[in-house]
């Protein structure tokens, strides 16, 4: 009864005041199918990305085993090629820090924390005592450790080969290298198995708007990765944005010296593909943040917010393409180009973290407290 009265009062007022109504046209409704979004993410992006990355990592494991068995220029080259292939594939999964990846005390901590602490690796090689499961060794394993072990242990290839062939610690290097790739492979298999057996359904069915539901966690993780993993780690930190001076030694794949740009472009593509719901294995697109924003009719000054965000990603890509393929050389030669790129990437953080989150009205994983 009261409900009806309240509604009636409200309705009567709207009708009586409709002449002065200058509200934006178009209905904003949120009967958006969130399950479809999660299904598209899981079936067409996340699981295929892992299924691409898993075998590439196994191939790398095989190549490293061959190199350890017979260290020569040919096996080294094969290991390096497969390292880069797997590292590029990794850029497509690092942002999915949800489910098993999160439960393993942050899978990405064991895969891609850089710069590496060389002294930890060298001590491990010398003494044979190290614990890759310990948080002290996050920065002494994963792709960055492989980068050091395959490119950085000596100044040229002959020197590197001798470390594994004739050095007094040759066995130590071989053991450490093997331990690193084994750890990466084992963790990756666990994550993939979890996605393909139990977690997929759990993920897809958790559509509520609570701090622990898949959708909310995924949005939070996605933005966190973009802000930290991509913007800060790959660009901001080496460019000295967070320090008093540039830190060119903190780029991704520092010892390789040639691929930091290629890796960051992969990462940006991965981020944008998730945003647009583009399938990993084809050009098909499905329900995504983009279609959600379009559904919510997020008109911002004549443009949908999704267009504004895509434009910003595209601008960032153009900026990155203009950089040296080695970011450490770019930072040393002309850091202003690097900070310019950072600024463009930064603007997208604002659009994602403020405008998109506001449009979704996502419950964020803050401390809970009462509101007004």
């Amino acid at each position, binding site marked *: 009864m009261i409900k009806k009265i309240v509604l009636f009062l409200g309705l009567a*007022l709207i009708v009586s005041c409709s002449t002065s109504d200058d509200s934006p046209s178009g209905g904003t409704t949120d009967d958006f199918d969130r399950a479809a979004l999660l299904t598209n993410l899981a079936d067409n992006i996340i699981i295929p990305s892992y299924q691409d990355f898993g075998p590439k990592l196994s191939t790398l494991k095989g190549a490293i085993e061959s190199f350890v068995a017979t260290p020569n220029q040919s096996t080294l080259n094969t290991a390096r090629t497969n390292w880069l292939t797997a590292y590029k594939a990794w850029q497509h999964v690092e942002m999915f820090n949800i489910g098993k990846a999160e439960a393993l005390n942050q899978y990405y901590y064991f895969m891609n924390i850089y710069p590496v602490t060389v002294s930890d690796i060298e001590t491990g090689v010398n003494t044979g005592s190290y614990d890759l499961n310990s948080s002290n060794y996050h920065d002494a394993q994963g792709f960055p450790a492989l980068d050091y072990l395959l490119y950085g242990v000596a100044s040229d290839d002959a020197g590197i080969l001798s470390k594994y062939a004739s050095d007094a610690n040759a066995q130590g290097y071989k053991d450490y290298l093997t331990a690193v790739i084994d750890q990466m492979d084992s963790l990756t298999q666990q994550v993939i198995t979890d996605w393909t057996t139990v977690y997929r359904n759990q993920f897809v069915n958790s559509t509520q*708007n609570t701090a622990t539901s898949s959708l909310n966690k995924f949005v939070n993780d996605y933005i966190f990765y973009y802000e930290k993993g991509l913007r800060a780690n790959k660009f901001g930190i080496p460019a000295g944005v967070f320090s008093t001076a540039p830190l060119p030694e903190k780029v991704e794949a520092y010892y390789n010296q040639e691929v930091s740009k290629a890796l960051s472009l992969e990462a940006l593509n991965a981020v944008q593909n998730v945003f647009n719901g583009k399938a990993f294995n084809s050009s098909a697109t499905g329900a995504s943040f983009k279609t959600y924003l379009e559904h919510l009719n997020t008109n911002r000054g004549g443009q949908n917010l999704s267009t504004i965000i895509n434009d910003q990603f595209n601008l960032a890509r153009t900026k990155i393409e203009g950089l040296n393929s080695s970011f450490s050389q770019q930072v040393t030669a002309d850091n202003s180009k690097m900070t310019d790129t950072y600024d463009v990437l930064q603007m997208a953080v604002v659009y994602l973290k403020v405008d998109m989150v506001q449009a979704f009205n996502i419950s964020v994983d803050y401390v809970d407290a009462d509101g007004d």
Partner: protein
Amino acid sequence: MYKSFTTYFKLQTPPAPLAVFRIGFGIMMLISMVRFWLNGWIETLYLQPKFHFSYYGFEWVKPIGNYTYLIFAVCGLSAFLVAIGLKYRLAIITFFLSFTYIELMDKTTYLNHYYFISILSFLMIFLPANAYFSVDNLLKRKTYTSIPKWTIDSIKLLIGIVYIYAGLAKLNSDWLFKAMPLKIWLPSKYDLPFLGNSFMQQEWFHYAMSWSGMVYDLCIPFLLLYKRTRWFAFALVVFFHVFTRVLFPIGMFPFVMIVAALIFFDADVHQRILDGFRFIFKPLRINIEKFDLKSYRYKSPKLVVPVITLFFVVQLVFPVRYLFYPNELFWTEEGYRFSWRVMLMEKMGYTTFKIVDASTGQGFLVDNSDFLTPLQEKQMSFQPDFILEYAHYLGDHFKRQGHQNIQVYATSYVALNGRLSQPYIDTTVDLYKEKESFRHKSWILPFHYEIKGF
């Protein structure tokens, strides 16, 4: 005029409504304190943060380590004493001081309803709420048959001010003609059974909620005052507050308002409520027949009446102080707090700080999560006084670390009620040189849109 004024202040009325109000208030506050404690919020909101945002002029009010728990214990205990009416005057003063201290410790947790509790408990210091049905009566073997009518009316007036100002604040173009921010908030309640995927998704429903919320706030004090609509109005109060409690995380506030609205009923209703309590306490065999019966008179009305009058003048004037500031109130938030502006904005921001050495021009960005909790960072990002205070904290911090010629610059983007985020703070202004004051903050960049109304 003066004569009718003085006659009014001499009017007497039965004390039961104020007694029920005292009991209800005390119990609700006790529950609030226990709930706050059990939720672990003393730890997460007051002990974990390294830094606390202070109100201007109250920088000395800070959490006091583990003794902060003691403040909450004192506050809860005094609420209990208020409820039973034991050493009432001392209890309500203690409650007012401890509760207000808690609210002043960190403005990150500012809520209008906490402010309401603070000023209401201040008002109650001057009211004879223990005149009837209190332990104090038992101890003094004295009970009162009547109290000044204005004491009950003062509570009604305060509640009326809250509702009316809250209603006036809703008379703006975003709320009425864009259904903002409800249009953002309600659709995200898609989980609600029955309503979630139906009403909550309808645009007309967002407008209906906005308009009826406004009408409710503006009308409810009058509907409660008028005897013939009182029960209907109370039913509305219950429905409205329970409904908002279902929709939004607003804690105890709805229940406090429902209990507070009981004050509008006539004394016989309260008498029946107290009879209910009497029935519970029957086994205690309390005999009040031998008690002195008296009519309550203030010992020093010449002191109390001016204090109460001044209190209400402040309550009427303070919410409109925003008129002294230029630019859009929702954007600058200068004069926004303590004005019953509830749920009017969906505002989010992203603010980063750069510490610069003035002599070299070199600088670096600060990772806010090194210093602030996520809740603090969220609140800081779109409120200028937070941004300024934090900028000074950062400047002082890095000065202690040995940095020299420190300048602090902020880059900030803020989105308000579904508009695209836009730059918020002048990036060329060294905030470390700016001082907090009640004057307009000229380094807030202008808002590109217009929101008409109060």
